[in-house]
C-alpha cells in the first residue's frame, strides 16, 4: 500500500521523464563518423594492447559485410552511422584513482539521479540494509567503481572493462566474445568494433559475492552512441547478483545504444542479472527523439547445474530490440527470464528471450508481462529450442499482454523447436485490456483513477516484480506507473 501511495504521489509530482536533464560536463569527443581510424582512436584512448585492437578491427571489417536484422516488429528510418560520435568522455586528468578525485560536477549528476557513489554515504545508511557496489558509466567511459577494495578481499574483481583489459588480460582474452561472438549480429558486431567501456566482474570459485553489484549507464553527450560491453564470469559454485540501470537526457535526435552483455557460468555457478531500463523514450506525441536500444545479452551456462536468471523492467527507449538469452549447455543447468516491458506514447518494443537447451535435463522458465498504452507497439518474441542431446529438458512459458486504450498493439511471437522426443514445453499466453469495468469497480471503492490504474497494473506485473531485489522492485513499480501516466482517461 505504501508503495502504491508513493507511486501515485511520485507520478503526480512528475511532468513526464524525470531524468531528461542535460548536464554541462566538458567532454572530449572522437571525430564524428565511423572508420577503421576511429576504431584505432578508441583503442589508443584506452591504452589497449595490440590483441584488443586487432580484435576490434576484425569486428569492424566483419560489420561492413553484415546486414541489419529486418524481422523485428519495429520501424525506424535508416541510421546514418557517419553522423554520430563513437567516443565521448568527460574530461579528466588520468582517470580518477579514488572517489575524491572524481569531478564534483559528475558526482552531482549521479546524486541528482539518486545513484549512491560515495561509499561512506552508503555505509552511513541504515544498519543491516543491503549495500550496493556501483560502476558508473558516463557516455563512453566508466567514471568510478565503488567498493572495489572490499570486494577484492574476497577475490571478486569488479571494475570497468577498460581496466580489466589492462589489468586482467588473461581473463578477458579467455572469455571475451565467447558467448556473443563478434559476428553474432549486426549490432553486436558494431559493438565489438567500437565498444568504449562497460563492467567486468569475476567471481572466483566457491565465492558468494558479498554485495549486489550494479552498473549505472548514463548517456549525456549529444549525437553520441553508447556501446558498452559487460562481461561477468561466475566460476565454479560462485554466486553474484547484478543490476544495471540506464537513463539519458531528452534530446530531439535519436541516439543509438548497442550494448553487449556476456555471462559465463561454470559448474554450479549462479548469476542473477536484473535490468531497470529507463532510457529517454522520445516525445510521447510526435515520437521525436529517444534512444534506440539494440542490445545483445546472452548467458552461457557452460557448467553443469549452473543457473542464470534474467529479470528486466523495460520502460524507456524509443525502440527496444533485445532478447536476453540462455544457452543451457551444462547438464541440469537452468535459465529463467522474467520481463516487464512497458510501452506508451510512440514507443516500440520487440523483446523476449531465447532458451537454447543443449544439455540433458536442462530447465527454463519464461514469464513475460507486456503492457502497451498510447500509440505504442509491444511484441514478445521468444525461442525455446531443445537439441537432440537435451533429453528431459523442460520449459514453461507464460506471456501476458495488457492493453491500455484503443490505439496500441501487442504481439506474441513464440518459436518452439524440439529436436528430441523427450522434452516437455508448455506455453500459456493471454491478452487482456485494462477494463473500464475494473477501473470503475476500484473507484467505487474509493480509489482515484491513478490509484486504480497503479493497483491494477501492479497486480498484472507482480509475479515479475517479486524477482527483483527488494529496493529495485519498489523503484520498478514506480517506474511502471510513471511510464503509464496519462494513458487512461
Amino acid at each position, binding site marked *: 500500500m505504501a508503495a502504491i501511495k508513493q507511486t501515485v504521489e511520485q507520478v503526480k509530482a512528475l511532468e513526464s521523464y524525470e531524468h531528461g536533464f542535460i548536464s554541462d560536463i566538458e567532454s572530449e569527443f572522437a571525430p564524428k563518423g565511423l572508420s577503421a581510424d576511429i576504431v584505432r582512436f578508441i583503442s589508443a584512448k584506452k591504452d589497449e594492447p595490440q590483441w584488443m585492437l586487432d580484435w576490434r578491427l576484425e569486428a569492424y571489417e566483419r560489420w561492413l559485410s553484415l546486414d541489419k536484422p529486418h524481422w523485428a516488429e519495429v520501424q525506424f528510418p535508416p541510421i546514418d552511422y557517419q553522423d554520430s560520435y563513437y567516443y565521448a568522455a568527460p574530461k579528466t586528468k588520468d582517470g580518477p584513482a579514488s572517489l575524491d578525485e572524481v569531478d564534483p560536477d559528475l558526482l552531482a549528476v549521479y546524486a541528482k539521479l539518486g545513484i549512491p557513489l560515495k561509499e561512506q554515504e552508503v555505509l552511513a545508511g541504515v544498519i543491516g540494509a543491503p549495500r550496493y557496489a556501483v560502476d558508473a558509466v558516463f557516455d563512453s567511459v566508466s567514471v568510478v567503481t565503488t567498493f572495489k577494495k572490499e570486494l577484492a578481499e574476497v577475490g571478486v574483481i569488479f571494475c570497468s572493462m577498460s581496466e580489466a583489459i589492462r589489468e586482467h588480460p588473461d581473463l578477458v582474452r579467455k572469455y571475451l566474445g565467447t558467448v556473443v561472438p563478434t559476428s553474432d549480429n549486426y549490432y553486436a558486431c558494431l559493438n565489438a568494433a567500437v565498444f568504449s567501456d562497460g563492467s567486468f566482474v569475476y567471481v572466483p570459485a566457491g565465492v558468494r559475492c558479498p554485495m549486489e553489484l550494479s552498473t549505472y549507464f548514463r548517456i549525456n553527450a549529444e549525437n553520441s552512441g553508447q556501446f558498452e560491453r559487460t562481461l561477468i564470469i561466475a566460476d565454479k559454485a560462485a554466486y553474484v547478483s547484478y543490476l544495471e540501470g540506464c537513463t539519458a537526457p531528452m534530446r530531439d535526435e535519436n541516439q543509438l545504444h548497442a550494448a553487449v552483455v556476456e555471462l559465463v557460468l561454470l559448474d554450479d555457478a549462479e548469476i542473477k542479472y536484473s535490468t531497470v531500463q529507463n532510457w529517454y523514450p522520445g516525445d510521447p506525441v510526435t515520437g521525436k527523439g529517444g534512444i534506440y536500444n539494440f542490445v545483445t545479452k546472452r548467458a552461457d551456462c557452460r557448467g553443469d547445474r549452473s543457473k542464470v536468471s534474467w529479470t528486466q523492467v523495460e520502460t524507456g527507449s524509443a525502440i527496444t530490440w533485445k532478447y536476453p538469452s540462455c544457452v543451457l549447455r551444462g547438464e541440469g543447468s537452468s535459465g529463467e527470464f522474467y520481463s516487464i516491458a512497458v510501452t506508451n506514447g510512440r514507443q516500440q518494443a520487440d523483446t523476449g528471450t531465447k532458451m537454447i537447451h543443449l544439455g540433458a535435463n536442462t530447465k527454463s522458465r519464461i514469464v513475460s508481462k507486456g503492457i502497451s498504452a498510447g500509440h505504442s507497439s509491444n511484441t514478445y518474441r521468444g525461442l525455446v529450442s531443445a537439441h537432440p542431446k537435451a533429453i528431459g529438458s523442460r520449459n514453461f512459458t507464460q506471456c501476458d499482454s495488457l492493453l491500455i486504450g484503443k490505439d496500441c498493439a501487442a504481439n506474441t511471437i513464440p518459436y518452439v523447436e524440439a529436436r528430441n522426443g523427450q522434452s516437455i514445453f508448455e506455453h500459456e499466453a493471454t491478452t487482456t485490456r485494462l477494463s473500464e469495468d475494473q477501473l470503475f469497480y476500484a473507484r*467505487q*471503492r474509493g480509489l482515484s483513477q491513478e490509484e486504480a490504474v497503479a493497483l491494477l497494473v501492479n497486480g*498484472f506485473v*507482480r509475479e515479475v516484480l517479486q524477482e527483483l531485489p527488494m529496493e529495485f522492485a519498489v523503484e520498478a513499480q514506480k517506474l511502471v506507473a510513471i511510464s503509464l501516466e496519462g494513458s487512461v482517461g
Partner: protein
Amino acid sequence: MLSIQELSASVGEKPILNGLSLTVPAGEVHAIMGPNGAGKSTLSYVLTGREGYEVTGGTATLDGVNLLSLAPEDRAAKGLFLSFQYPLEIPGVPALTFVRAALNAQRKARSEDELAAPAFLKLAREKAAALKIDFDMLKRPLNVGFSGGEKKRMEILQMAMLEPRFSILDETDSGLDIDALKIVADGVNALRGPDRSMLVITHYQRLLDYIKPDRVSVLANGRIVATGGPELALELEKSGYDRYAA
C-alpha cells in the same frame, strides 16, 4: 439521507430513468423491486457515477451533498457503497491489499489517519469470521476463481470493512444458495443502524425474508410507481409486476 428528485438518465441515446423520485431517511432499509429492464441497475450506476450513464435531468443528494457532480471515488468517500450484481475479478491484487487500499483512500479523502496494518488485519479477521470466509482466501487475488456465492460474500465483507453510510445492494441474492443467503443477510443486518441506510435491489421477495425492509418501492419504466410497507413485497410476489407494466 438520500434524496432523489425527478431523476432522468439515459444510456447512449436510450432514456432509462424517467423522472424518478425517492427519499430514504437515515436508518431505513428500502427495497426496490421491479421487472427486468425497469432501470434498477441503471439507478445504482447513476448514483455511483459509472461512465456511460448520462444524467439528463433531476437531482440526487446524500446528506444534502449533490452526488451527481462528484467523481465515483468522492462519492465513495462520502459513504456511498455499491455491492455489485457481478463483482469484478482483480488479477494479481490480493483481496486484503485491495480492501486496505480502498479503506485508506477513503480515510485519506476524509482527512482521517490511515489504518495501520495490525489494526487492519484484526478488523479483517473479525469481519471475515462473521461472514464465514476463510481468512486465507483474502490473500488470493480478489474474486479470481471465486464462485458466485464467494464473490457476493466478498462484496459484503468489503461493505463491512468500509462501513458505508449508504449501501446499494444490487441483486445480492442472485447466485446464492439458501445457506449462503442467510450468511450474507446476517452480514447485512449486522450493519443496520440508526445512522445507516440501504437500498436493496431485488427481483424476488426471497431476500426480503432475511433482510426485512422498512419500506418497499416498485420501479417500472424508469420511475417509482408505488411505495408501501413490507406487505407490498408479499403482494408483488403473488400478483407479479403486470399491473405496473406499460
